[in-house]
Each structure stands twice: as structure tokens, then as C-alpha cells.
């Protein structure tokens, strides 16, 4: 009923146009307000300037050595993406493995779960000084923070998923002659897959938050570093371009993960 009403109401306007309308209006309004002087361009750069800066940052040739925002975007983006990939990858491997054990074996739950629950409420940002002292101002600091931050949602969701494996499926497997170890891999893990992917998505989101935090304070490269450094130069145009860069990469990586999940969970009733 609802979709019929929507179609008849706005039949002439294609979906893509409808959905782009609001962002376009906001950007035009933003540009206009800066141009007429309602917004101070020293603090808020107009979108046209941000785009130009972004373009130079990505495609510019390094003629002026003094300007770090000419043609350096790709290496910054790559640095950040590599840290996210390393930290998230490690968190995924450890989180899924540990979460499965904690969810399945009582002994593992007793041994490991209290420690996880003890550490989990500590905000990851509170680990920053420790990370710098331990790993120094290097990539390892960032990878550690990202890994730790992504680990918790992954391990918690994996544990929940494995705990919620329908007992009747375990019975079915046992009655078909499946051994307990085999049941872990052939029943518990696949049954927990929807929860595991939920954890991975949450973890990936946290990873992009933390790469920026880490690069602002603990590492001297990447998009987070560019973001923080440009603040010292009052390059608000770079700040905005960097913000959208991080947002774009985060969005892209989430889409990729969702694609993978949609394929891996094509059997699930609702995903």
C-alpha cells in the first residue's frame, strides 16, 4: 500500500534525483551563505574551495615543497587504510576465534570472559598514552588501538552468536554421528555467522574512528595526521576535505563488507 502511494505521489521524479536533492540543497546553501558573508570564510570554507583543495591534494604535482597538501592524498589515505586493515584484520581473527571458544566452552568462558568484561568498559582512547609509551610514535601504536577497539564488538557478538546456536541443530548433528569438535566447526560457527558479521561491521566502524584518533596523537602520517596538522595551519579547507575523505573510505569499506556478508549469508532468512 505504502509503496503504491509513494509511486503515484512522485511518479515523475526518479529515485536518484529525489535522494540527491537534500544534499545538493545543503551544499548550495552552504556555498551561498559563505559567498554573501553570513558564514565567515576564515572559519568555514565554501564547498567550491574544499573541492579545489581536495583536487590539488589528490592530483597536484609537488611544485611547492612547503605545502604538504599537494599530491599527498593518496599516500595519506593508503597509510590510514593499511592501519585499519591490519588492526581490523587482527581483531577479526582473534575476536572470532576467542568469541567462538568463550561462547562454546564453559571453561573458556570462565577463564577469558571476566577479563574481556573487565577491559571492555575502558574507552579505547584511554589506552592512547599507554600505546604511545609501549609502541612509540609508530604505526604499531595505531594498529594496536584499532585492533583493540575493533576486537570488543567482534568478540562480544561472536560469543552471543555461538551461544544462541539452536540446540536442535546440535542434536541433529549428533544424531547424524558428528563428533563434538566437528560440531563446533560444522554447526556452531556457521550458525553464528550472522552475529559474527554484525560484530565485524561494528568493529570496522570503530576501526575508522580509531585510526583518526591514533593518527592525531600517536602517528605522524595518514589522514588523521593531515586533519590535525591542517588545523595548526588553519587550513579549514583541508580539514573539511580530510573529513569527507575519511567518511568516504569508511563508507566504501562498509559497503565491501556488506557485499561479502550478503554472499556469505545468502541462506539466512533475513539479512
Amino acid at each position, binding site marked *: 500500500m505504502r509503496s503504491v502511494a509513494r509511486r503515484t505521489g512522485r511518479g515523475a521524479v526518479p529515485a536518484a534525483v529525489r535522494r540527491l536533492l537534500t544534499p545538493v540543497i545543503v551544499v548550495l546553501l552552504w556555498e551561498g551563505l559563505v559567498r554573501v558573508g553570513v558564514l565567515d570564510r576564515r572559519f568555514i570554507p565554501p564547498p567550491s574551495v574544499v573541492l579545489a583543495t581536495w583536487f590539488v591534494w589528490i592530483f597536484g604535482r609537488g611544485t611547492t615543497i612547503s605545502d604538504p597538501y599537494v599530491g599527498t592524498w593518496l599516500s595519506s589515505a593508503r597509510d590510514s587504510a593499511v592501519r585499519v586493515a591490519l588492526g581490523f584484520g587482527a581483531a577479526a581473527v582473534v575476536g572470532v576465534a576467542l568469541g567462538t571458544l568463550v561462547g562454546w566452552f564453559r571453561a573458556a568462558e570462565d577463564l577469558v570472559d571476566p577479563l574481556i568484561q573487565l577491559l571492555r568498559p575502558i574507552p579505547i582512547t584511554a589506552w592512547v598514552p599507554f600505546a604511545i609509551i609501549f609502541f612509540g610514535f609508530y604505526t604499531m601504536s595505531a594498529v594496536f588501538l584499532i585492533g583493540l577497539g575493533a576486537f570488543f564488538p567482534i568478540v562480544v557478538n561472536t560469543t552471543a552468536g555461538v551461544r544462541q546456536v*539452536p540446540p*536442535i*541443530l546440535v*542434536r*541433529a*548433528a*549428533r*544424531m*547424524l*554421528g*558428528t563428533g563434538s569438535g566437528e560440531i563446533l566447526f*560444522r*554447526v556452531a560457527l*556457521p*550458525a553464528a*555467522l550472522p552475529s559474527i558479521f554484525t560484530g565485524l561491521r561494528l568493529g570496522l566502524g570503530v576501526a575508522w574512528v580509531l585510526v583518526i584518533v591514533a593518527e592525531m596523537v600517536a602517528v605522524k602520517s595518514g589522514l588523521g595526521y593531515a586533519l590535525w596538522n591542517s588545523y595548526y595551519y588553519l587550513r579549514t579547507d583541508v580539514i573539511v576535505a580530510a573529513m569527507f575523505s575519511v567518511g568516504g573510505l569508511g563508507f566504501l569499506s562498509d559497503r565491501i563488507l556488506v557485499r561479502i556478508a550478503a554472499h556469505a549469508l*545468502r*541462506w*539466512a*532468512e533475513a539479512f
Partner: protein
Amino acid sequence: MAVLTIENVSKSFRDVSRGETIAALHEVSCTIGDQEFVAILGPSGCGKSTLLNILAGFDAPSHGRVLVDGRPIARPGPDRGVVFQEYALFPWLTVQQNIEFGLRGRAADRSATARRYVELVGLRGFEHRYPKELSGGMRQRVSLARVLAVDPAVLLMDEPFAALDALTRQLMQRELLEIWARTRKTVVFVTHSIDEALTLADRLYIMSARPGRILEVIDIDLPRPRDLAAPQVNDLRGRINGLIEGEVRRAFMERAQALDG
């Protein structure tokens, strides 16, 4: 060859929330012969599924013992295939993969065996579908094929057709009888439907309300397929109805009293 011997089996559960012990089965004894098709009939909550779970090895009896060909049952095993009311298919596996689940040996052999059972239950063309894409009747066929593929001596069926619509149920009953005629397994079929039991079984065990006891054993010496409107069947139905109705009423009164108290 499989003979099931149930000796003085009692089972009680601890209801933690109410802090009381509930007797589910009380001194059940019977012997189910090789290749027999036996139905266990009783009002809901009478412990008939509990008995089946003990036969399957999912639960242990509190007292008494259960033997398969003279050996006590310790755990579930592929000699006793279970068909669950809820199908219990692995949703992440296709029809073919579900049927292959319990098979051993080389991939090619497993695949060929599974295909044979896909044929047997009439699901050719659906091998690569996932359970969510199948109707209830089709899912139960997969569940049956999955169990038959491991070639158990005993088939334990826990109200397998209860969730199906009436027409599908009739069709499934007929096909189950055909498969049974061909494979000659020992079948223990739990149901609360008198007509279903009369359609399928060689012998009926009528169970009382909780704690479940065997009230009566009725042999059905009629050729299959049976005409449920035949006079002998009507007589049996009347007799069973009387037995079960009394039990249902007794169970209801007891529950009402328990709530009052």
C-alpha cells in the same frame, strides 16, 4: 536388525523456576521388534517426546534403561535417525549438502548417495536450494532424506508432520509408508493424532497424561493403505478416543488444581 527394549524407564525433571521435581515418565516398559512400525499416542505434555529423546540418546532416563539390540544407549548415534517436528535442517546448507551432512567417505560417493535420497523423497531439481526456499513439506522430506541417507536401523519420528497442512500431511504419510515398505526400518512415530497413528502403525502405545505411563497397547492388523472410514478403524478410533479423552480431562483438572493451590 534392530530391537528396542525399554525397561522400567522413569524420567523426572527439576523445574528450577518453581523449585519442584516433575515426573515426565513413570515406569514405561515395552519392546519394539525389528522392522515394526510403532506409534506412540498421547495427549500433549504426556512425555511421549521425552521417551523419544531418551531413545535418541539426547536424554538419559532417571531410572530404568533402554537397549538397542541388547546394548544400552549412551549417546545419539547414526544407528537411530531422528526426524524432528521442526525439521532441524542446517539453514546454511543446500538440500544436497544437508543430506550429505552425515555421510562419510569420498566426496563423489557422498554426493552420489545424497542424490539417490533426493530422488527417493521426490526433490529432484531442488538440490541446490536452501531450506528457507522450501515449503514445510519439502523441508520435512529433506529431513527424512538426511536421516535415511546414513541408513539407520531405527527411525525415530517426533510429530514430524504436525506442522504441515492436512493435505500435505496425508501425502507425507503415504510416502513415508512407501519408503518404509522399501527400506523396512524399525519406526517409532510419536503423534497426538489418532488418525495419523491409525494410518501408519502396526501397533499403538497409548500413553497417559503426565507422568506418562503406557495405558494400553493396541495392535492394528489391517492391510495398508487403510481406509479410515472402515468399520474396524471406526471401532478402534472410538476406543482410543475414550481412553485419551479421559486422560486429557484428568490432565486438565490436575493443572487447574495446581494453579488453584
